[in-house]
């Protein structure tokens, strides 16, 4: 147990530090304090224990370049192509690192922007909403990355994808996924 600090650093300052949101002077002063103060350093570690795993975690949607990087690192990736309107029931185990739902059947060649929303089936609670989602233009698909760490999340989800074309037209596709974690 570290001795208490007489001038403890505020939580919001520590969060700003780990979000790279302090100016150079503030950052230097904070780092000098953290190196001298075991108590504030421990608290900084508690922030980092949340932010850094998040930073390393896969985002829910991958750009094609990110997928290529994962492949080049030797990750075990299994693809699950899904067509609009389809109900997919994939079995996801620890034998793969990334289970990639390839949400296909879209016309993305002229898309300017794609929005993505994933809801819990049954409650309609929105779990993820991304207004400017990365997408695979050449493959006409969105790449939704799933893995065993999602096992504690709701398994049955509905995904809505809206693409906004350069001609002002909007198209929409819906996918239903009932995950089975094994």
């Amino acid at each position, binding site marked *: 147990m570290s001795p208490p600090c007489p001038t403890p650093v505020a*939580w*919001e300052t520590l*969060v*700003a*530090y*780990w*979000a*790279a*949101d302090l100016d150079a002077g503030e950052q230097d002063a904070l*780092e*000098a304090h*953290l*190196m*001298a103060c*075991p108590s504030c*350093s*421990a608290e*900084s*570690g*508690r*922030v*980092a*224990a*949340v*932010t*850094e*795993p*998040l*930073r390393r*975690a896969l*985002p829910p949607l991958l750009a094609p370049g990110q997928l290529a990087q994962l492949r080049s690192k030797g990750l075990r990736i299994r693809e699950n192509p899904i067509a609009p309107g389809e109900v997919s029931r994939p079995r996801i185990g620890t034998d793969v690192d990334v289970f990639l739902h390839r949400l296909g059947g879209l016309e993305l060649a002229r898309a300017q922007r794609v929005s993505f929303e994933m809801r819990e089936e049954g409650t309609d609670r*929105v*779990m*993820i*909403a*991304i*207004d*400017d989602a990365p997408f695979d233009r050449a493959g006409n698909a969105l790449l939704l990355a799933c893995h*065993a*760490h*999602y*096992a*504690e*999340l*709701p398994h049955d989800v509905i995904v809505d994808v809206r693409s906004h074309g350069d001609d002002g037209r909007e198209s929409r596709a819906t996918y239903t996924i009932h995950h089975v974690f094994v």
Partner: protein
Amino acid sequence: MHAEPDAQLVRWVAADAAERRAAEAELCRRFAPRIRLYGLRHLRDEERARDLVQIVSCALLQALRAGRIDDPERVDRYVLGTCRNSVRRLRAADARVRPVDDEELEVIADDLALAQTATAATGEEGPPMSALFRCLDGLDLRAKKIVHLTFQVERSAEQIAAELALTAGNVRVLRHRALRALRRCLDERARAS
């Protein structure tokens, strides 16, 4: 030894006192978690952060023995300065740098053993990823977006503010509240398990 101030430990090492070995180990143990966090913040990589612990711990031991710590009361300044210089060198190398080469290894085998013990003592393993995602899912949608955009897309508060039609100040407040909620959720789950 655990209750002695840093400056006393520094003096024992510099004087080659009977307590020297234990003092060296205690200083390494104290600074290792702080060096690791500095490395994690600037190198964004756990393995390189642990390399930094070894590099800085070895440099600290050598400086202590050579009496190069001018002000024992501020040994932390020496450690921070060494962290900054080492990170600059690691970045300049633009590749994963080994902590020491073979020749150095023979010379400072003892130091390395101490530094490695210190590295092991940082022992901060972070929460299970499944718990982290579960807690993240419990945040409201706007907070989730801010966390995602900050830490996964690396957007600034100003960029996020423009995207979500908020002020940058709002984003900062929502961001630290979200992080506090995540931290509490993880602590509660850890206690429950």
